[in-house]
């Protein structure tokens, strides 16, 4: 059965791609999308390992990860809208008020 190593490798690759996206992109919405990529990579790892261990607890946890991700996207995009309304830009380099 080739699925487990391949699925875990794929999960690691997608997680790293999301992480590199968070590092190199300047637009706040695209950074948020890369965070969603990372969450999806973790979901894939959960499902693959649940299949390996012949249990469904991993899939239940994926359900909760998706719920939390949906709530996080709603609140996060509301924050981004509020930010844009105040600063007229979404370049994350501009939000440096807490820099000393």
């Amino acid at each position, binding site marked *: 059965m*080739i*699925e*487990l*190593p*391949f*699925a*875990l*490798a*794929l999960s*690691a*690759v*997608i*997680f*790293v*791609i999301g*992480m*590199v*996206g968070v*590092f*190199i*992109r*300047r*637009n706040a*919405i*695209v950074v*948020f*999308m*890369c965070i*969603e990529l990372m969450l*999806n990579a973790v*979901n*894939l790892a959960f*499902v693959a390992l649940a*299949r*390996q261990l*012949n249990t*469904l607890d991993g*899939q*239940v946890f*994926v*359900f*909760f990860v*998706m*719920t*939390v*991700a*949906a*709530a996080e*996207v*709603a*609140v996060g*995009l*509301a*924050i981004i*809208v*509020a930010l844009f*309304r105040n600063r007229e830009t*979404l*370049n994350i*380099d501009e939000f440096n008020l807490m820099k000393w």
Partner: protein
Amino acid sequence: MASLIFLILGVLVVISSLLVILQRNPVYSALYLVFTFFSMAGIFLILGAEFIAAIQVIVYAGAIMVLFLFVIMMLNLEREPEAPGQHPWQKVFAVFFGLVLLITLGGAVYSGVLKAEPVRAVAKPAVENTKAVAALLFTDYLLPFEIASVLLLAAIVGAIYLAKREH
């Protein structure tokens, strides 16, 4: 046959997620992310998680990405300009650290999971996937389920309050 489809879907996921992070226009990034989510749903189907595949399409590709696209449309963003204040080698460092993490994760998976657990055959499930997940969700995981609904309520209230226009 299933392995071949799995391989094709995996390559599609990697290519489209690379395109998500490399596109200049945020709308293109969002569309490639939708494609990534659909391919991931296909991978979930091959891994036997039909319920998760269905709610991946409905929730992630169907609700979350629609929300993203609505916000991008509402804020009327253009192409991302070249970042002036960036360190000139930031992309190089980012890719380097990404590769370091990838190798570390690969090593951790190999030494932790792949050596310890022998790869065994998967038992054919007795009931359908949705029924089995629901049985777990409403018995063993009932408390997290109810807390998740309270979390969604808090998210609704928070999102509405944060995005409201000042009067």
